[in-house]
């Protein structure tokens, strides 16, 4: 196990056995103290701190301060940033796959108009598994609600086009005497695409109908 050979100050140490790995090789990784030289398991044993810089020629590690200062012969091991959770239980790693995100919106539809429940912007990366779920308050009339999904298309980054496949069925007389709940799964967005989901009400039925809606999606990171 590499041993600390010099403690310069609270944020710098040298490890002779880790010389010559190339400047910056360990920058951003973590310096984990495997064993305190005192032999009693005292701090900083078990602690890990971010490596801020690494100088190859003499094995100097600049690191965040440990709770207790390092000592010569403490045994230390650099750990790659992608494989370590820090001591506080918070991973530094946000998975590179997809992050589940969500949004909530309460709005009202009105006669002869359309409201947008949600807008999504995939500027930062692709988005998949988009689900829109909404609950329409009861309406005893003959209201007809038409959900629609609009997306931008390749080479046309600002003009929204109504999605027609798969077809979305109009919701006639939502709920009638009882409220009702609907769920739609929408197509994925490529990086840069935008999306919105709207509800249009015909010129009949209640003046307004409350829609409680939830959106879930997975965003690439």
């Amino acid at each position, binding site marked *: 196990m590499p041993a600390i050979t010099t403690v310069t100050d609270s944020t710098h140490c040298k490890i002779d056995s880790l010389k010559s790995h190339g400047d910056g090789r360990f920058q951003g990784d973590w310096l984990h103290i495997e064993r305190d030289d005192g032999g009693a398991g005292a701090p900083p044993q078990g602690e890990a701190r971010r490596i801020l810089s690494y100088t190859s020629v003499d094995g100097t590690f600049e690191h965040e301060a440990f709770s207790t200062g390092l000592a010569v012969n403490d045994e230390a091991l650099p750990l790659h940033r992608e494989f370590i959770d820090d001591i506080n239980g918070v991973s530094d790693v946000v998975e590179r796959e997809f992050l589940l*995100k969500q*949004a*909530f*919106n309460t709005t009202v539809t009105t006669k002869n108009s359309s409201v947008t429940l949600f*807008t999504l*912007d995939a500027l930062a990366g692709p988005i998949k598994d988009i689900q829109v779920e909404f609950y329409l308050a009861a309406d005893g009339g003959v209201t007809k609600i038409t959900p629609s999904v609009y997306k931008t298309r390749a080479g046309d980054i*600002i003009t929204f086009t109504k999605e027609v496949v798969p077809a979305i069925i109009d919701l006639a007389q939502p709920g009638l005497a009882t409220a009702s709940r609907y769920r739609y799964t929408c197509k994925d967005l490529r990086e840069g695409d935008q999306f919105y989901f709207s509800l249009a009400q015909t010129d009949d039925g209640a003046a307004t109908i409350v829609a409680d809606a*939830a959106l879930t999606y997975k965003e690439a*990171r």
Partner: protein
Amino acid sequence: MLDIEQLLPPGYRFRELWDAELINNNATLPSSIPGGHKLTLTGARKGTTTKGAHFDGSATSNLNLGALYNAGAKLWVSLRFKLDRDYDSSASAYQFLWSKWIDDNNRILLALENSLGKLLLFKIDGGVNAFSISSTQISWNANQSYHVIASISSAEGVRLIIDNGTPVTDADTSALPNEGDLVIGSQYDGEASGIKGVISDVVIGTDDLSVAEELNLYKGVPPSDAINSYLLDEGRGVTAYDRGSGANNGTLDSSCSWDFGATKLPVLSLDGINDYAAHTAYVVNISGDLSLIWAGKFGINYTGIASYLSLVEMIFDNDNLIYFHYYPNDYVNWQTKGNGTQKFIPGLVPSVGDYGILIGTLTRAGVSKFFWNGNLVGSETGTGVIEGLARVFIGKDHTVGIGFTADKPSLIGLVEGDVSSVAKQLSRRINKLKNFGLTI
């Protein structure tokens, strides 16, 4: 696959969370947590982290604003520009930043002048020079942002100011050309004479700027009476939205593009004039242990400004509130006030374009801490116990017409619990989530 809630360590939860990528029709920003409250946008709209509109110097690279201010007695134009390549007296051609051009004998222009390497503000009427003043600066670095104000006035004459330096002046008081389009990024629409670089934060007015207003423009705070404001942060499409009272949207010509760095995100775009987002019902719980998070791109260099500016305010009443704000003390502060007893913690001074993650914490016992990009910058004790449910204002103070800011927040959250013991780790995660590129 992670849940957004897992940004937080075990034992914490969001009371409120707003992510700018969900901005809905530039009207609302839905909550990202169950039971949260959506924000209503006033003037604010979805923008991006683009550095601005890129112009390539070709004949189809310009932003034509139309024939504005014909024969106007006063005009000032403030903008930031950044060149693709170094520019000095060895350059082969002029590069126009803006112009109002009828013909070569009737025009006003701001351009880099190749023979001298200077920035030239020039006006000619009927073939007779009205004025010609130049910067003392004779070389310009690639990829460095410069701020310039050029103004003419029937009362104050002509002024040219680079990066808040000493104004170069002329006593001429003649009016603007009586026709011709005001064109950004070129001399006129269709001429291959424009800047090869990026322009952003174009603000235009038709009054006399005070010295304080000139300073504020350099710092990123436009005057409240600005007529046109083109932040050029749309990041897609060809429309440059006018955020000022002029409501004169411009169209970027076909060779313009958007310049992004590594960070490519939707943001809540605020113009610093009158934009904000708010939830004005008293429903947000700001009692007990809590933490407030603001993560985004700064549009203001928070120092030396005489005005009060508010990034985020959650307020029950004047005695119970939490705030990230700038009070004229040269810092962004974390302010907490409970039952009338308040504490300020001064933070740091960002530059325009910096990314930042601010976390303010407060315990029921009155201990407050302020973390900037994961680092503790100050702590206080003695804040009173906050009582009441709060309203939320982002980009302005709760007071009507006060405290407008021009930043670009991407994520704002209120956490149940004091996250000070894990603030650095939480900041790292937000940094990675948003790809800010900060070293934390």
